[in-house]
């Protein structure tokens, strides 16, 4: 299992569309992927779960992945969140 912290950088934070993008990205990997914030864990492959997460701009999340392709999964999500900023900027 590996973990990495990411910072939400887009203005609007994680709302409906980023939730869709995260789940689409996470589903490409076999590993179990979780988003953790303030002790609250959600399944990164489920839009419904992600929608329950309050993650405005500036908040910090932990990505946690466990499985055969855990490294790749974490890297893909980190890139989406921190570098591509959900393609919003």
């Amino acid at each position, binding site marked *: 299992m590996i973990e990495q912290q990411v910072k939400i950088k887009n*203005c609007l934070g994680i709302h409906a569309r980023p939730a869709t993008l995260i789940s689409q990205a996470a589903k490409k990997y076999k590993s179990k992927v979780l988003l953790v914030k303030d002790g609250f864990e959600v399944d990164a492959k489920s839009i419904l779960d992600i929608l*329950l997460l309050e993650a405005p701009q500036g908040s910090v999340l932990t990505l946690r992945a466990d499985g055969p392709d855990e490294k790749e999964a974490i890297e893909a999500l980190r890139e989406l969140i921190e570098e591509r900023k959900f393609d919003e*900027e």
Partner: protein
Amino acid sequence: MKNKILRGVKVAEGIEIGSIIIYPGYENEVLPFYILRESDKQAEIHRLSTAIDSVKQELKALQSIFEKENDPYSARIFEVSYALLEEPWLLEEAQKIIKNENRNAEYVLQKVIAHKLRMFERASSVAVRQRGVLLEEVARKILKKLIGESDTLASIPEGKILVAPFLSTFEVAQIPRNKIRGLALSHGGMTSHLAILAQTFDIPVVVGIKDLMRYVKDGQLAILDGYKGLIILEPDESTLRAYEAKIKHYSQLHDKLVDVKDLPPVTIDGRNIELCANINLPAEIKYATEFNAEGIGLLRTEFIFLEDMLDEAQQFNIYSNIADKIYPGSVIIRTFDIGADKLAPYVREDNPFLGWRAIRLLLKEKKLLRTQLRAILRASHKGNVKIMIPMVTTVEEVLEVKKLLNKIKRDLRNENVEFDENIDIGVMIETPASAIMAEVLAKEVEFFSIGTNDLTQYTMAVDRNNPYVSELYDPLHPALLRLVKNIIIAGHAAHSWVGVCGEMAHDPMAIPILIGLGVDELSVAPRFLLETKEIIRHLSYKETKAISEKVLNMKNAIEVRKFMKKVLKEEFHLDSIIDLNSP
């Protein structure tokens, strides 16, 4: 009960008289709950998954309809709903309960959704709580499929006033356009998105009518007044006659005004006034062009935020689409006026109208502004796009926007992206500070557009929605008129043109005064374009100059209105065109 008047909130204007059809919706339905036989379980799971699949198909279809209509923000909500249903959780959890508890699909669906909704309701953040609506609407749609009621709205009879406790976005999207004559809802919390979908129907819409469901009956005759925001059930003879006269007046006026459509907005002594349209939504551009607006004097961009915020590419598409349609006329794009009463989910303020809104917010949330300015610049390559900054109180705000704009221009040049190097930038004058300091601001911009609604509220220190003080709200108060004069003089001295885009611009009593004071442009909601033009064409610029000097020296708004009423009738013979007795 004869002539029962129920008040609500107006969403779309218009008056209709017609018979009522009630769409009871979900609240009033008794859902079937029963225990399954062991042998029926598999079939029940299949029934649920079929219902989910057919909802998914509908969502896909709705998404592509709105994409085709160039309405990406509507398309987007259907996309997210679809994605929600693509996930297996719903069917998996439902399957478990069907197997363990032997219950029917309707019961199970409700149970699963109620459990999920409680999670949203418990969230501490408002934003998260609101997201539950997405799930609720999707669930409702599946339930309707299960009980076989999916097509009731699609097949409602023509020409009725539709009454319902509540309609979901999906349901509104399903109503065949031009089929219903009016829409009245008892639920008040209509989401902004829903309101906007309803507005595209071009029928009167009134929501938040308390007790509506208690008094209303199927087939009952009713008057829906979208101007005043009320519904009258079983109107009596005299009310009916009064409303018929009103409808006749509006339609006659419409016929009379059609002739003026192709004529220029010019006074009898040859002063040309540029007559433009204000629009709130991309779809409204069709009304602006239908009534021959010369340009878009105010494009409000808050719709960008209705669902998820649109990114630069999507904003660019929308802005350039509008610029193309109005070409060679131009479009003035006002940067986001968010905060105060509009779309401010992030902060709670004691005094939002004096708080963090519009340009004050954008200069702190620079990414929002940068994204928008980039999209606007990219859409400006044909040279018919202008930028307007709202809620300016001091010149540094303008300078800061210009600095950012120059930086973006440099970036675009480096990226070899085409844009208008000389794009005009203007200020929406809506605070007393900017009106008084117009001389300083004028040196920094190419134009002013006076937002008289806010300028009146801030100058008179009155909230026009507050019935205790709303009497004081009148843009014809000499205090306002003197400010307007100051703004125009300052603008013209610096060779900037000056327009008016507030509601004052279509007020028949105000138009002669504004023209007399020297405004160059009036921008009004599309439905006022023809009436405003007809009024302009009856005026003499020379006379309006004398009139405006006279009213500036009056004591109060009542005196100004009384005088203007007489002038409109006796000097300009406008009493046949406008109803001088309506407030």
